[in-house]
């Protein structure tokens, strides 16, 4: 197996199979054979909640042997070929299962959104569904090896489906022998709409009941995060390594409570921002960490105005030299007037203007 994969990854095979590449030929024989690409097959689908309009399901995914595993808290890009559509959609989802090794199964816990074509389809996916994956990504992870936990206490604050990366971390700790006797209390504070909407309800109940040093606080209904409650539950929380993940509103409150404390790590689940009007919001250039007020001009022009020098060519939308990745927000194609709010989308910045807040990798 390793001999075969070493051969498949060799330069010789790359030259022989160019220009299409060895993976293209392998996938023609079996979609689960790969030398570089990562793909996965859904092997089981489990409904977590039946929330009207936004049910949640957990998908167990068997990845190809090329999967390098994940650290608890990471996410993966999932590309999906929807039936009847020639456009492959790619979205990011946090991994909810404990840290995985190379080629090992993992789970994705996904909430279906009314306007989210991918999440809606995946929640009702059938076993056997093929997914185009990236390697695991993201730094919202536990800094120490879970097998040898440090002695510092840990705190997780999550809201709604933001529970997934924290769940992966807690599961990893418990699986790898963490039992609280090391004197490292773990506190899990989670907000959900209602008991019926509580993801992983049974497992959380079990974790709370076991003698494992993990304290679980579930808040349902109108309860929102507040600093007073946190101070009561976890005195001295600002000195505790904290992972917070959930809706933007909740994270704002958490951020305010911690001021600029580096012990707080945030993971934002981005809601699609759709606003209309020519020149509203801010345009953020992520790579250079710059932000300008959206002037309504093309992103290329606004970047140049801000002193950046992005690569460009024709400046009229034909040559694709200026293509850059938009990670957040909506852009309007100035030639066609069509708007697009897809996250992590490659756009031609010379003919794209931001509509409201927008983040571009420049």
């Amino acid at each position, binding site marked *: 197996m390793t001999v075969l994969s070493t051969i498949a990854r060799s330069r010789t095979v790359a030259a*022989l199979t*160019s220009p*299409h590449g060895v993976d293209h*030929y392998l996938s023609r024989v079996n979609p689960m054979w790969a030398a570089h690409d990562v793909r996965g097959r859904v092997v089981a689908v489990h409904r977590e909640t039946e929330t009207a309009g936004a049910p949640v399901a957990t998908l167990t995914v068997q990845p190809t042997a090329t999967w390098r595993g994940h650290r608890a808290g990471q996410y993966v890009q999932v*590309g999906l070929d929807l039936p009847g559509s020639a456009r*492959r959609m790619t979205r990011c989802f946090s991994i909810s299962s404990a840290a995985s090794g190379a080629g090992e199964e993992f789970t994705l816990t996904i909430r279906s959104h009314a306007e989210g074509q991918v999440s809606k389809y995946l929640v009702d996916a059938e076993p056997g569904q093929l997914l185009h994956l990236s390697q695991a990504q993201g730094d919202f992870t536990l800094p120490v090896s879970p097998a040898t936990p440090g002695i510092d206490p840990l705190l997780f604050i999550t809201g709604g489906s933001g529970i997934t990366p924290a769940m992966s971390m807690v599961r990893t700790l418990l699986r790898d022998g963490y039992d609280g006797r090391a004197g490292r209390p773990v506190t899990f504070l989670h907000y959900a709409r209602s008991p019926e909407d509580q993801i992983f309800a049974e497992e959380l109940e079990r974790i709370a009941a076991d003698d494992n040093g993990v304290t679980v606080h579930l808040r349902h209904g109108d309860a929102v995060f507040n600093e007073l409650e946190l101070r009561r539950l976890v005195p001295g929380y600002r000195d505790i390594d904290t992972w917070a993940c959930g809706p933007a509103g909740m994270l704002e409150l958490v951020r305010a409570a911690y001021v600029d404390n580096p012990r707080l790590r945030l993971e934002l689940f981005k809601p699609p921002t759709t606003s209309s009007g020519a020149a509203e919001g801010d345009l953020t250039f992520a790579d250079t960490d710059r932000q300008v007020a959206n002037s309504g001009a093309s992103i290329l022009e606004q970047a140049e105005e801000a002193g950046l020098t992005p690569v460009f060519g*024709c400046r*009229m939308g034909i040559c694709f030299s200026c293509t850059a990745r938009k990670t957040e927000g909506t852009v309007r194609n100035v030639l*066609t007037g069509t708007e697009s709010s897809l996250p992590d989308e490659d756009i031609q910045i010379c003919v794209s203007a931001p509509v409201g807040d927008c983040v571009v990798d420049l």
Partner: protein
Amino acid sequence: MTTKTHHARLTPEQLEAFGREMDDLRQRILADLGEDDAAYIRDVVKRQQQLEVLGRALFYLPPAWPLAVAALSLSKIIENMEIGHNVMHGQYDWMGDPHLNSRIYDWDNVCPGEQWKYSHNYIHHTFTNILGKDRDIGYGILRMDEDQKWHPYYLGNPVYAFLLMVFFEWGVAMHDLEVENIVKGTRKLEENKALHAGIMRKVRRQALKDYVLFPALTGPFFPLTLAGNAAANLIRNVWAFNIIFCGHFPAGAETFSTEECADGPDGTETRGHWYYRQVLGSANISGGPLFHVLSGNLSHQIEHHLFPDLPARRYPMIATEVQEICERYGIAYTTGPLRKQLASVARKICRLALPDRRTSPAAEAVAQEPLAA
């Protein structure tokens, strides 16, 4: 030197209306892109791969050598023309499939995709047929237009053209080095360092594949396979050269000066004039469906230059409509069978080898021009 006065003159209002019609046509196709286009390109890839596997396999049967060369040549032609050229134009980027993405795909050609995209997608497609800007006019080697000043060097025009045809992929790879500008002293040798490294990397990979690995895999037939691979590359070179030279250089295809292309505010070119220039600067080749596929649909050079980022299979479908719109505005739409266009290009290559006699080209152009509205 003759100045180009034979373009059908359009008023700014006419140009704007013409541009709007082209924009509308483009919009209609963009809105309609979908499964048929995806299925088409995937099918072309599949057939090309079948041909390649067949060709490579037939080299194990020495008596089938001509068949092997034929299959491999066809595979290479389809890969360069209908897949490589078009995918690298970004025609299928909308599918979100990394395999068919212009930023990832690199064709079966010694010219690195990254460099080709710059000189072709940007320089050639933006400044199509503008003298002094579009380096595809004669590729810095040939004299392909009366407005290129004659020099005794150009006496070799037909010889250079023949050599460029035989070594076309190498010519394309060297294109970005702008050797002619280095000779002239307007470009420094250091500017080529990074490009040079990229070309050598690609050349090594291509040579390893066609001239070492595949021949070695056929064991005792090594020399035969090597010769067969070289023959397939040669056939692809000749074909690509001829299709491409018929796209911009037959009689009827026109060149422009920088001044003519500054009809908009602040000396920029209007979108209408850009479309207008694309039509006048290109020429189509008529033929059957198989011919169109083998040319990568560059037989519809006019449609390709109007909409370089739309899937090429759409060009034949919109050709009648484009021609009808052009006729209404009195814009010449040049087309003809391969034999006629080739003869026209060959005549031009020979004629321009010699210094200009009077203004005979204008007479030829007038004969080509349909009645202006």
